[in-house]
Structure formats: structure tokens, C-alpha cells
């Protein structure tokens, strides 16, 4: 079953701006799906339409088989939304926000209090449960919105840039949490500007540009299109910049080299050449910009096609 099924969705705002130009997209149940695109591409409009915050101009949307035109309430019950901007009452404490939200979904107060405790503890907000929400840090506010979206235990969680402005430590703990609930069966759709985040978390990916879906495929297949791969090597300070006819190399700082290899080239040969030039490699990692390269390529291609 598809968690969401969009068919020919168009959205024309007042004033004639065409935000979506006939997007069709399916996301499978249990998927961790990334929806990427430059600013103003139509990602938030798409999410708004799925969660019924934005009225579509035309097209069909179904959520776990429930058509939003005819079975809106059933469709809404399946979705938990974490919007891009903080949209809770800043004067209310987290506990009250969560319990109220559960109430809107028909969950009794006793059960709502139990769930609120569970999610506030899981997301490290329990200590702050009675503090006015405006006093929470940016990362805490983001986690509060995730907890709020989970209160009715939705089958689909939509996160619109959930880690924007969050420090790396909190971001990583949020990634772990999202991976955990995805493993528990919750379908996740994520928009993000951190392409590393999408690459690390998501199995499938859609790229929207200028209101059109320019790519919809698996992360693996998208990344496999890359002809080259870049590695970062941490080395002992070299006495000279090593050179090679076999691969391209550049020194990014005193102890870091960046090498670019075709997929057909062997890493063994890289190490042999560096070793022969007296370079000692202490550690190595992938440069995590592979998706970024493809993203720019796809979006630029779209621009040229227009």
C-alpha cells in the first residue's frame, strides 16, 4: 500500500503563481523518503496539500488509501506533521501542548498524559514539561514539534526541515530517533536542506524544482549515477604536495588531502603511490557531498531545459 499517492497535483495561488505543475508521486508504506528541492520549488506546498493546510487547485491525494476530498478526517488521522516554522503556542508549556493536541485527535486525557510523558522523555524534554515553550532552545522546540506530531501515533510522519538551525549533536540524536520510529513502521517523508541528512536517512528520494518532480528514485540508484567519488585522507604533514597521473589530488590543509577517483579505479593503487612518496595515511573517509553534486546537476539541468 502507498502511504501517499499524489496524482497530477496542481496549485495556483491567488495572483496566479503556479506553485505545483501536475506532480504525481507515490511513497510506499514504511519508506523513509526525502523530498528535496531549492527554496520556492514547491516542497512546502506539497506537504501543505497532503496535510490539508493548503487547498489544492486540481489533482487527487490519498493517504493510506483515504482520499482527502471524500475521507479527509480518516486521511488526517494517519498524518503527523512537523512544520518548518515553530507553530505552537509559545506561552503554553510542552505538556499542555501535547495533551491538547492529543485531545484534537479524540485521545482521552489520561491516555494523552501517558503518551506525553513517553515522548517528552524520549525526546529529552521531560524536565522542561511545565516551562513556557518560548523559553526552550531552538533544538528543544524542534523536538517538541516532533513529540506533538507523534501524540496520535500516526502511520505517516511528515517533517519539513526538522533539523534547521539545530546543532550537530542534537541533529544526530534526532536522526537516531527518526530511524528508530521508521524501523517501528512509521513512514517518514522528510524535506531538508542538509543533503547529508537525506543521504544518511532516506531510502528513496524525490526532487522538486519549479513545481515539477524532476527526479523520483531510490537513493542508491541516484548515487550510483555518480561517476566519481571523493575521499578525504588525514595524513602526517607531508614535506611536499604529492602528485599522481592515476588520480587527481589536492591538499585542503596541512594534514588533509582530497583525492577524486573514478569508480573503476582502485584504492590500493592510491595507497601504494602515496606510500612511495613518503605520505603516511592515518585515516580516510568519504566526502559527504555526493548527493549535493547530483542535486545541483539535476536542478541546473532543469534550469537549462526551461
Amino acid at each position, binding site marked *: 500500500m502507498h502511504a501517499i499517492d499524489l496524482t497530477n497535483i496542481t496549485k495556483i495561488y491567488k495572483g496566479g503563481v503556479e506553485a505545483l505543475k501536475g506532480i504525481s508521486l507515490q511513497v510506499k508504506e514504511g519508506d523513509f523518503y526525502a523530498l528535496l528541492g531549492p527554496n520556492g520549488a514547491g516542497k512546502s506546498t506539497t506537504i501543505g496539500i497532503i496535510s490539508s493546510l493548503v487547498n489544492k487547485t486540481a489533482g487527487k491525494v490519498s493517504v493510506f488509501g483515504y482520499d482527502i476530498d471524500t475521507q479527509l478526517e480518516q486521511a488526517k488521522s494517519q498524518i503527523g506533521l512537523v512544520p518548518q516554522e515553530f507553530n505552537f503556542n509559545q506561552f503554553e508549556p510542552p505538556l499542555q501542548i501535547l*495533551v491538547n493536541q492529543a485531545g484534537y485527535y479524540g*485521545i482521552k486525557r489520561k491516555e494523552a498524559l501517558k503518551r506525553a510523558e513517553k515522548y517528552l522523555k524520549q525526546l529529552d524534554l521531560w524536565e522542561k514539561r511545565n516551562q513556557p515553550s518560548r523559553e526552550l532552545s531552538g533544538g528543544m522546540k524542534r523536538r517538541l514539534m516532533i513529540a506533538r506530531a507523534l501524540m496520535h501515533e500516526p502511520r505517516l510522519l511528515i517533517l519539513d526541515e526538522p533539523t534547521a538551525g539545530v546543532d550537530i549533536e542534537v541533529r544526530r540524536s534526532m536522526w537516531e530517533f527518526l530511524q528508530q520510529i521508521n524501523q517501528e513502521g512509521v513512514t517518514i517523508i522528510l524535506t531538508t536542506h542538509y543533503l547529508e541528512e537525506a543521504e544518511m536517512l532516506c531510502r528513496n528520494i524525490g526532487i522538486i524544482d519549479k513545481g515539477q518532480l524532476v527526479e523520483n528514485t531510490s537513493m542508491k540508484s541516484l548515487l550510483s549515477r555518480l561517476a566519481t567519488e571523493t575521499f578525504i585522507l588525514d595524513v602526517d604533514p607531508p614535506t611536499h604536495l604529492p602528485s599522481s597521473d592515476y588520480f587527481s589530488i589536492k591538499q585542503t590543509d596541512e594534514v588533509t588531502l582530497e583525492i577524486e577517483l573514478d569508480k573503476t579505479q582502485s584504492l590500493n593503487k592510491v595507497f601504494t603511490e602515496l606510500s612511495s612518496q613518503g605520505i603516511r595515511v592515518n585515516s580516510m573517509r568519504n566526502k559527504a557531498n555526493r548527493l549535493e553534486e547530483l542535486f545541483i546537476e539535476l536542478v541546473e539541468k532543469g534550469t537549462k531545459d526551461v
Partner: protein
Amino acid sequence: MFNANYLIALKSIWRKETNRFLRIWVQTLVPPVITMSLYFVIFGNLIGSRIGEMNGFDYMSFIVPGLIMMSVITNSYSNVASSFFSAKFQRNVEELLVAPVPNYVIIWGYVGGGVTRGLMVGFLVTCVSLFFVDLQIFNIFVLILSVLCTSVLFSIGGLLNAIFAKTFDDISIIPTFVLTPLTYLGGVFYSISLLPDFWQAVSHFNPVFYMINAFRYGFLGIADVSLVWSFSVIGAFIVALYSLVAILLSKGIGIRS
């Protein structure tokens, strides 16, 4: 169709709304009590004693029902207008829009909050009035029905205002330029029988006049127009405004893009 989940949702909205105005009671409950106390002192005691009787009652007894109603009207209205507009402004109205809550539950949840504050303020003002006048009740049923209907009507009015409002100025324009004049000219301080014929006729187009008329009847047993006509007008306004708000919400006007 109404189901148990909607009842929980309705209670949640109502509780949230009630908690909101109780949390800021210094801003919501105290000012109307102080304002009305000043009215009682100045208009009732100081000036009223020189005015004499109005429709067979001393002036203080005559204006108390109108002043109570005035506080109910302004507080019911402003509670819903400011709360719903704040929810739009902070975008936490989206919490309701993404949830499986029918529009009528949203409307009655907010109206419930407005009515609760309106009645609470009305009760407090009534308590204060007891220091100034020996309040008697002529018909408790008419009294309760009129104050309840008025509070419902102006809560819906506040919601309508908030739906259209785009700035905080927009939610103060209607109370200042429409609600206050209607209330003052609705017979709070005088019987419309004192007015020339033309202005008496004009007063009949003022819905607040019918509300104060019915409420005053509940206390004193006197009325400028019949109760049936008063409640019919109030009922018609409730149906009209409710229908308008329901249509606006279903089309997403002011809340969805």
C-alpha cells in the same frame, strides 16, 4: 455526525481557551470588574442620584443589567477575537487544521471559551454590583437565556472578526468603532422611550438593544419591546453569524492558503 472523539476535541479546545484567559486573569478578568465598578460609582451613585427614576426604578437599579451585559458582550467578543487571531498569527491554529476536527467543533470550542469568560466576568460584575444596589431577579429563566444567547452571539462575532483579521489592529477596529457605539446606544444608560420617535426607530436596528432589553426584563420585569421579538432577533443573528463563520471556515478563508 457527532462522535465521542469530537466531544473530546471540543473539551480540549474549550479547556485550552479557558486556561488561556485564566492564565492571564489580570488582563482578562480584573479590568472589566474595575471598569464596571467605576461605572457603578460615577454613573450610578454620583450622577444617578441626581437623575432620579427611570421606568419606575432608581437609576442605579436600571443601569446595572445593562452594565453587566456590556461586560459580557465585550469580554465574549474580545476573548474569541484575540485568541483565534493569536492562533492564526502564531500559526498554532494549524494544530487544529491538521487534526480530524470538524469545523463546527472548532467553532463551538472557541465560542465555549468566549462564553465562559463572558459569563465569568458577568458574574464578577454582578457580585460587585451588590455593593451598590439591592439586586432583585424578576425572571431567572429569561435572565440566563438572554445572557447566554448574547454571549454566544458575540463570541461568534469575535470569531468572524478574527477570521478576517490580518493584523492586531483589525481585531480592535470592530470593538472600538462598532461594538462600543452599539452597546452605548443600545439602552444601557437610558430607556429608548426617552428618545425622539426617529431615534427610537433607529434603535430598533441595533441588536444590542434587544439583548439588554431581555436581560433587563429578567432583573426588573420591564421591557421596551416584547421578549418574543427580542429573542427572535438574537436567535436570527446567531444563526446568520454562525452560518457565515461555518461557510468561511469550510472554504478555508483566512486560515488556509
